[in-house]
């Protein structure tokens, strides 16, 4: 008995989108010389193994490719490339109703569908009692399906597939319409299925609490690709964070090419940027072009943008990009000025980001925010709040903004949000990257507190009160 029930490697699904049906006709008639479709990749290069005893949760926004994946595995959709192998019987309860016939009674639908799925009528009849009991539909079991509520249809569908006892059960969002007690019953059943390590469950749900409770692994799909996969808690937390940060429709995660370095000529912006809590900005009067060799560091007011790679770019980045400016990179420096993805808890650190202006901006306002993975905000400030007057910039200039941070951030993972606005409307961002970059603060074990601003206690002998 093999331990692996499902293996998929490099699964991709491409849909051809035609503007008009005649486009397809034109392609057929021309034997492929005319192209009238565009490709839509619903799933890209998906690989995983499902072992006995695993319950794998698949999460992601609508249209992320979850159902496409499950449909490919259930054999109702052909993959465009890649391969998968299913070792055992897989049944999938896809969406509502699972193709029941509305004119047949619940009982007949069970027998009919079981037969369509290739079960012998004798086996289906043998399971009939069990299905009726699990579905608990009362007299509705012998009434036509068109009289069922959507919840009742799901009860019938799940009961049927549970009773047919597949090695792999695929459940796609369907349970959401069942009532609370039936949902519990289903989840209990799935728990039992995986408990004895002989079967597996693939579950798509938007109910993150159930996903965390039930699943041993969670895969987060985004635009057809795996964004994050692993233990349920961190994946679900990252997903929730992603879903609830910002309200902009445009979510991009453009990755800056590692090693792209912008040269910054010296001399300008001199007066600023020495003292702590002040801004250091390097200025560039000519349009910056990528330079093959990084310039030497530490020349007074000139700063070099480190190759990205050093600081983990967040997978949860949400960018509101205007046309006036762009954030080129962000990074963290430790107390020695070294660029690092993780700073020490006892030492000050500096958060830096580089902004390139694409059009002239008079007196921009630079802002920064630091928050935890759970969304708690620890730093939120900008140059306006700090009464820090910023010079004006012309198109093509690059400013590097450095924010010294006193020691005090607790041991944890943090997200950096960078935002640039103007003095006239400080809350209208020229560019804003929400949770664009991550860094960690490391040190002795974390306490769960948001900050560590208490120093080592002083313990003295007390006098006994008399």
């Amino acid at each position, binding site marked *: 008995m093999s331990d692996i029930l499902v293996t998929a490697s490099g699964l991709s699904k491409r*849909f*051809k989108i035609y503007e008009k*049906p005649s486009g*397809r*006709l034109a392609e057929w008639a021309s034997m492929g010389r005319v192209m009238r479709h565009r490709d839509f990749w619903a799933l890209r290069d998906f690989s995983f193994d499902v072992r006995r005893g695993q319950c794998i949760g698949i999460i992601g926004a609508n249209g992320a490719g979850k159902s496409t994946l499950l*449909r490919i595995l*259930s*054999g*109702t*959709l*052909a993959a465009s490339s890649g391969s998968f192998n299913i070792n055992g019987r897989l049944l*999938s309860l*896809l*969406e509502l*109703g*699972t*193709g*029941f016939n509305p004119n047949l009674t619940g009982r007949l639908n069970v027998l009919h*569908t079981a037969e*369509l*799925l290739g079960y012998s009528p004798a086996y289906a009849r043998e399971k009939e009692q069990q299905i009726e009991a699990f579905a608990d539909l009362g007299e509705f079991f012998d009434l036509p399906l068109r009289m069922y509520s959507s919840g009742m249809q799901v009860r019938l569908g799940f009961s049927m597939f549970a009773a047919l006892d597949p090695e792999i059960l695929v459940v796609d969002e369907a349970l959401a319409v069942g009532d609370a007690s039936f949902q519990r019953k289903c989840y209990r059943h799935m728990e039992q299925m995986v408990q004895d390590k002989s079967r597996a469950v693939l579950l798509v749900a938007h109910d993150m609490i159930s996903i965390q409770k039930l699943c041993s692994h969670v895969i987060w799909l985004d635009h057809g690709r795996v964004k994050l996969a692993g233990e349920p808690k961190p994946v679900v937390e990252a997903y929730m964070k992603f879903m609830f940060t910002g309200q902009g429709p445009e979510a991009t995660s453009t990755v800056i090419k590692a090693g792209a370095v912008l040269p910054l000529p010296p001399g300008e912006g001199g007066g600023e940027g020495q003292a702590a809590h002040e801004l250091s900005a390097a200025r560039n009067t000519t349009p910056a072009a990528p330079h093959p060799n990084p310039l030497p560091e530490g020349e007074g007011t000139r700063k070099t943008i480190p190759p990205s790679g050093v600081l983990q770019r967040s997978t949860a980045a949400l960018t509101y990009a205007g046309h006036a400016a762009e954030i080129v990179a962000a990074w963290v420096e430790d107390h020695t000025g070294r660029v690092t993805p993780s700073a020490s808890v006892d030492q000050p650190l500096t958060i830096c980001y580089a902004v390139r202006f694409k059009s002239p901006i008079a007196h921009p306002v630079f802002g920064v925010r630091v928050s935890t993975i759970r969304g708690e905000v620890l730093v939120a400030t900008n140059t306006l709040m700090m009464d820090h007057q910023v010079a004006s910039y012309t198109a093509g200039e690059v400013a590097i903004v450095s924010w010294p941070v006193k020691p005090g951030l607790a041991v944890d993972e943090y997200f950096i949000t960078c935002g640039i606005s103007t003095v006239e409307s400080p809350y209208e961002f020229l560019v804003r990257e929400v949770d664009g970059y991550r860094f960690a603060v490391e040190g002795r074990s974390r306490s769960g507190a948001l900050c560590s601003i208490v120093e080592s206690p002083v313990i003295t002998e007390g006098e006994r009160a008399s």
Partner: protein
Amino acid sequence: MGALWNVLHPLAMIAIYTLVFSSIMTPRLEGHPGRFAFIIYLCSGIIPWTAFADCVSRGCGALVLNAGYLRKLPIPEPVFVAQEAVAAFATAVISFLLLLVFAVCVGLPPTWTWLLLPVPLIALLSLGFAIGMLLSTLNVFFRDIQQWVGIALQITMWTAPIVYAAAILPPAYQALLRWHPLLPSINSVRLLMDGNLPAAWEWAMMFGWPIVVGAMALAVSRRLSDEIRDVI
């Protein structure tokens, strides 16, 4: 009433034709004396034709109609078209049983060739299944096909001597009719009803057509079966 309709419909058809063609209109059929000869001729053409037409028109819509199953269950597409072909065959068998009872009642002597009647019916519905497969696959992509099928079926019916005698057609056209895909089966049904055996070329044509169209349907559905699930 369910299954009873499968008996009532053909019964009503025979009753109506009997009423119309034995008392109101009385067309004569060459070489077939008797009041009821034309009715038997007509029914033995109409029953296979209806089975074929049902099989094609319902088969053509079968995939779209069963989109719900196709989207959610890994069932091969031909199952749904085959369902329609089998249903049409069952209806035709019931109708023929009634027709044979009627024939005996009006004095036609039973012959052993009646036992061969299912053979041309199977050939005809194999062709119906093949055409249904072809059209239903295309119909998934171009849903108007279903509408055109209705018109095409009407034309096919009236170009062949199904409700009229072949003798009324000009001889040149009669020679052309040899290639009509439905006629070998329908003619064979009539020959078997009269106690005659169809000629060798008729047997060959009867099964040649389904094989040719079936091969086409297979090629098309192989090519498109992946995409059917994408768009349905």
